[in-house]
């Protein structure tokens, strides 16, 4: 009996030691120094091959059973299929329905166009689509991202089961350990550094500490990040704006550079972290009541950027999490301050794990659990060249210009819609645009272009 117990204890002891040594050598030490062994990229490529195989099996299996696989249409397809009103009208005329009294005329069937558009938007509209997770074309062995997972073949189910074991049994505990280490170190180190007098040494150490802890957190999520155009990295006295997909965006950007964060003061664990961080370098935390006062907010931000020794501010102007297929309207507040804006585009690769936080569906803890039990988070970050407000441009136009640049770089759809449309009503002016367009085709007969809102 005892012998067995002893053996067990010894085995456990050894495995723990091995575990921690591996952890230290392969993950924490590189994180501290900012180097990488390339293990994660290898992992990523292997996974891709497995996913392709899995999708092929599924398609083959579905064909055998004569089922129809539900294929989600991609962005590009829909815009090609949606003929513009003008094209449809021309087609109708050419097919010869009704009299040919020269020039476009009203036909009873014109109503079909609006009717169809209306029903299409009932079935799936551009805006709501942005607030639910993106649908994938190939399956990444996570049931949560797939509609077609019925029992197609034993091999596939076995693979999926293996995947579950690996993700929840090995990867999850590893990541949770790392996460705790990272956050713990952050709080500890920043509090320590906060004891130093203000000066060059303090900022230097604070920078190093922040970077190190964020890098550990990045590994805690197995995030594989590619940074492009690092020569455009934000500098002091500027504002960095980026598109928002999830709270992880902060970690991703902060592991490559130091920023001053902006946010509301929270209670609990978040509050502890916030208070610790602010000791080491100046972040901007607002009380709940102060958030409503726009002038106060603007003043604090302006003061911060005016001080050239302070770090660039990181802001997400969309105001809410979008599912990373598009960029929604930017709130103009941050663009009114009148300093250099450094746009950053973040694009997640959805094949490995969906980073989008659907705050109406999942809470924060649930979300983090999902993140940590996905295969990996793969994303690309592009630093765009700095932009400033031009003569005669108001804040809204400037915001739209920056938004267009980010959307273009990241390959996201540039939408006119407001992220706040999660809740509010549509403006009358958009309806008028539709009517104007139809009347032009009927009565005017000039070449027109559909507004991008449609």
């Amino acid at each position: 009996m005892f012998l067995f117990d002893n053996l067990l204890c010894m085995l456990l002891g050894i495995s723990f030691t091995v575990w921690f040594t591996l952890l230290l050598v392969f993950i924490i030490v590189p994180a501290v120094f900012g180097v990488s062994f390339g293990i994660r990229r290898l992992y990523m490529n292997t996974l891709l091959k497995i996913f392709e195989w899995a999708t092929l099996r599924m398609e083959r299996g579905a064909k055998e059973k004569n089922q129809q696989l539900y294929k989600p249409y991609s962005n590009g397809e829909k815009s090609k299929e949606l003929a513009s009103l003008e094209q449809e009208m021309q087609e109708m005329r050419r097919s010869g329905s009704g009299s040919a009294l020269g020039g476009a005329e009203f036909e009873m069937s014109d109503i079909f166009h609006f009717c169809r558009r209306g029903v299409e938007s009932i079935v799936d509209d551009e805006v709501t689509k942005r607030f639910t997770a993106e649908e994938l074309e190939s399956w990444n062995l996570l049931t949560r991202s797939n509609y077609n997972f019925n029992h197609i073949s034993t091999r596939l189910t076995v693979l999926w089961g293996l995947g579950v074991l690996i993700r929840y049994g090995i990867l999850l505990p590893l990541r949770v350990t790392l996460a705790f280490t990272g956050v713990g170190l952050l709080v500890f180190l920043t509090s320590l550094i906060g004891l130093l007098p203000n000066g060059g040494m303090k900022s230097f150490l604070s920078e190093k500490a922040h970077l190190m802890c964020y890098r550990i957190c990045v590994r805690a999520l197995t995030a594989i990040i590619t940074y492009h155009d690092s020569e455009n990295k934000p500098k002091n006295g500027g504002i960095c704006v980026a598109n928002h997909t999830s709270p992880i965006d902060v970690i991703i950007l902060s592991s490559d550079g130091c920023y001053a964060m902006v946010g509301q003061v929270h209670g609990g664990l978040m509050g502890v972290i916030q208070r610790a961080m602010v000791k080491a370098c100046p972040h901007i935390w607002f009380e709940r009541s102060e958030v409503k006062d726009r002038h106060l907010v603007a003043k604090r931000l302006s003061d911060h950027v005016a001080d050239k020794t302070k770090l660039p501010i990181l802001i997400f102007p969309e105001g809410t999490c979008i599912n990373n297929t598009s960029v929604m309207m930017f709130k103009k507040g941050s663009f009114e301050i009148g300093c250099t804006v450094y746009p950053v585009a973040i694009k997640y690769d959805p094949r490995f794990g969906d980073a989008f936080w659907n705050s109406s569906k999942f809470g924060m803890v649930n979300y983090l659990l999902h993140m940590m039990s996905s295969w990996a988070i793969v994303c690309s970050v592009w630093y765009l060249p700095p932009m400033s407000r031009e003569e005669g441009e108001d804040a809204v136009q400037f915001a739209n210009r920056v938004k267009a640049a980010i959307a273009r770089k990241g390959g996201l759809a540039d939408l006119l819609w407001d992220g706040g449309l999660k809740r509010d009503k549509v403006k009358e002016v958009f309806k008028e645009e539709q009517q104007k367009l139809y009347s032009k085709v009927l009565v005017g007969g000039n070449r027109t272009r559909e507004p991008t809102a449609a």
Partner: protein
Amino acid sequence: MGSTSSTLSKIPNADELIQETGFTSAHLARLFERFEALDKDKKGYLSPQDFEAIKELALNPICDRIIGAFFSSGQEMLDFSSFVRILAHFRPIDNNRTKEPNSPDPINSRINKLKFAFQLYDQDKDGKISRNELLQVLRAMLEKQVTEEQLESIADRTIQEADLDRDDAISFEEFRKSLEKVNIDHKMSIRFLR
């Protein structure tokens, strides 16, 4: 999200719906998720306000009429089966479906699509599109962009062309005849449901 079978089990009489509408189980599951997404207060049914909350629908000039088509019997609650039955009108026509004798037309047949469009015009449901009803639709689609005279002349000309029995209104038969050459399948089907 989740597998199709778990979503399907939440739908009452799913098999019946599949049989009746011709949607596949995958489509049905997706429509159910859409139904739940639109039903923000989780009432279990949809109200006209839920439809009005769809931004792209709100900017459609005939948005009220389309919503009216869903709530046609005057009720204020739309359950999932009715939702799906109406959407079934927009399924592309299945050309290779064998027609059994004495079986009712499928929901997405050409005739039924035309009937759906007809009711968008005929708001008082008297079986005819009067000149006034036609004017109302034109006004909705064109609003401030044309003058009242232009609207009236368009309405007059349309009735003149389609009204064969000279009763100054367009019956369903006249409507159908005037659209004989139009490719209804193409215009009244939503391609991405396939």
